[in-house]
């Protein structure tokens, strides 16, 4: 890779040990993916929950932070993905003091590094969305696919180590989605049924992701003629990224880089692949059947927007959860403040639900809290979470928000 004068200085340790490590780390990755140079990035976003970090990862962050404020401070705005422990509610959730202490140490190290603890996977809805053509280094697959596809900014999936390396150096290797040619479509899908709710958008995204099944495939979708909402595209993209490791999609006439099919298919227009409504039902049918008992209903992954919380508040008004069913709702701190002010939090919690702030269900020691609370069957309106959660020992079921609320009251899938 070509290094400029500043990058050579970083690699030689002239700008401190953190920058030396960061540049060497990114060089390894860049060389694997044939990057020729680095590109400056305007923001970084890091996934760093304590379950993923473990003692080793937390110690790594503490070491980076321990080099002193001048050397260790991130040089661009850097924000965080959801945390793994809501420190105001962890005991009630069955999380341990050891988990909370790892979380506290992570937060302290991040703050020493100058990272803004936004604790959200919907930063594109609530903090500073990047703009068309902007290069960023984002973690969280849902954040990246939305940023690439809906906003037209440019990011690869950046795991925590690479995100912090980008934050410290202000750059990332220029490969993958930072390059024009890698943003061209390789698969073409046609639909004739517009999804009717957030869950159906997630199912459609999941089916496209499942078929692509590669980070390096870029789907273009035809047949969506009017603009979906931000929440609809949030669920669509998050599910696609989860099922397919897909970081970018285009929708002809809707997303900013796809003014026409030809513009995003300059290497040749791929053969069309139709997705029928029946195929989408088949995917949903894998996740739960009528009459199944429900231990916990989860609204998360991605965190809920203020609009989703408003919808949920209306659905639960005047209702009480079944005595053997819990409900967990996850949102971002920025949204939680509005939810509190607007009265949504009180209404949601009145039915017996618990609103967690700055976390997401699956990255908060899901296996351990399941065991602590006796949760085995999980029902959600998130297609992403039902794809993730079985590895943690849960039996997942998928229904839309209205059906989830009704099932939570009944204690079984209706």
């Amino acid at each position: 890779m070509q290094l400029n004068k500043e990058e050579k200085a970083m690699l030689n340790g002239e700008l401190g040990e953190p920058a030396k490590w960061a540049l060497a780390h990114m060089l390894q990755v860049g060389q694997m993916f044939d990057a020729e140079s680095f590109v400056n990035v305007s923001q970084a976003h890091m996934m760093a929950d304590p379950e993923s970090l473990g003692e080793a990862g937390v110690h790594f962050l503490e070491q980076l932070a321990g080099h002193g404020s001048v050397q260790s401070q991130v040089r661009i705005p850097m924000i965080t993905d959801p945390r793994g422990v809501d420190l105001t509610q962890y005991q009630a959730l069955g999380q341990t003091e050891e988990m909370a202490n790892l979380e506290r140490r992570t937060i302290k190290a991040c703050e020493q590094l100058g990272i803004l603890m936004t604790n959200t996977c919907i930063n594109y809805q609530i903090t500073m969305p990047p703009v068309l053509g902007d290069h960023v280094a984002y973690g969280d697959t849902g954040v990246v696919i939305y940023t690439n596809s809906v906003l037209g900014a440019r990011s690869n999936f950046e795991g925590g180590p690479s995100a912090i390396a980008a934050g410290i150096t202000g750059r990332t290797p220029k490969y993958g989605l930072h390059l024009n040619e890698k943003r061209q479509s390789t698969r073409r899908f046609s639909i004739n049924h517009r999804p009717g709710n957030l869950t159906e958008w997630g199912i459609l995204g999941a089916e496209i992701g499942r078929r692509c099944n590669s980070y390096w495939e870029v789907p273009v979708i035809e047949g969506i003629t009017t603009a979906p909402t931000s929440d609809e595209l949030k669920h669509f993209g998050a599910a696609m990224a989860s099922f397919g490791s897909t970081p970018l999609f285009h929708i002809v006439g809707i997303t900013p880089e796809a003014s026409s099919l030809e513009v995003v298919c300059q290497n040749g227009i791929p053969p069309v692949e139709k997705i029928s409504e029946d195929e989408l039902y088949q995917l949903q049918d894998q996740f739960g059947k009528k009459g199944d008992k429900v231990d916990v209903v989860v609204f998360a992954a991605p965190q809920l927007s203020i609009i989703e919380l408003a919808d949920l508040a209306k659905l639960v008004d005047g209702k009480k959860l079944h005595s053997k069913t819990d409900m967990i709702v996850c949102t971002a701190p920025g949204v939680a403040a509005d939810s509190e002010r607007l009265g949504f939090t009180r209404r949601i919690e009145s039915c017996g639900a618990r609103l967690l702030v700055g976390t997401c269900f699956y990255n908060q020691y899901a296996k351990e809290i399941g065991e602590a609370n006796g949760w085995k069957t999980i029902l959600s309106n998130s297609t992403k979470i039902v794809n993730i959660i079985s590895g943690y020992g849960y039996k997942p079921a998928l229904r839309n928000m209205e059906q989830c609320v009704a099932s939570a009251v009944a204690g079984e899938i209706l």
Partner: protein
Amino acid sequence: MSKQFKCHQGIGTKTQGLALVANDGFSARYDLDRIQGVFSRPAHKLYEQSYIDKILVLNTAKGGVASAWMLHEMCSRGIAPKAILFNSANTILAQGAALAGMTMCDRFEDGDVTELFHTGDQLIVDPVKGLVTIT
């Protein structure tokens, strides 16, 4: 008689071990019980099999960014594969391998990596040269 296969330049150092092969994906968060060191996702083709000290041979990387930290955490406890070979890695797994010091290669010239190698093969992986040898 040994047989060599060429791949793209990878990450990590030269290593050797027994192959554990499946035509399936990989995510440390979605698929593993990282405490026990086994595949825990019931739908995974390697369900309940131990990956400790194996050279995993899989189709592609799946899902989320957590795998990057998780490979590092797994290696710190010694409950980890020695290497992972993919048809196609994603950025997260490569980044995780770089932090963890785990060997990782992809893009094999001779075809589907899950067919080139078989469970139980003794492999030597040289990521710098981009070579994998069945001994």
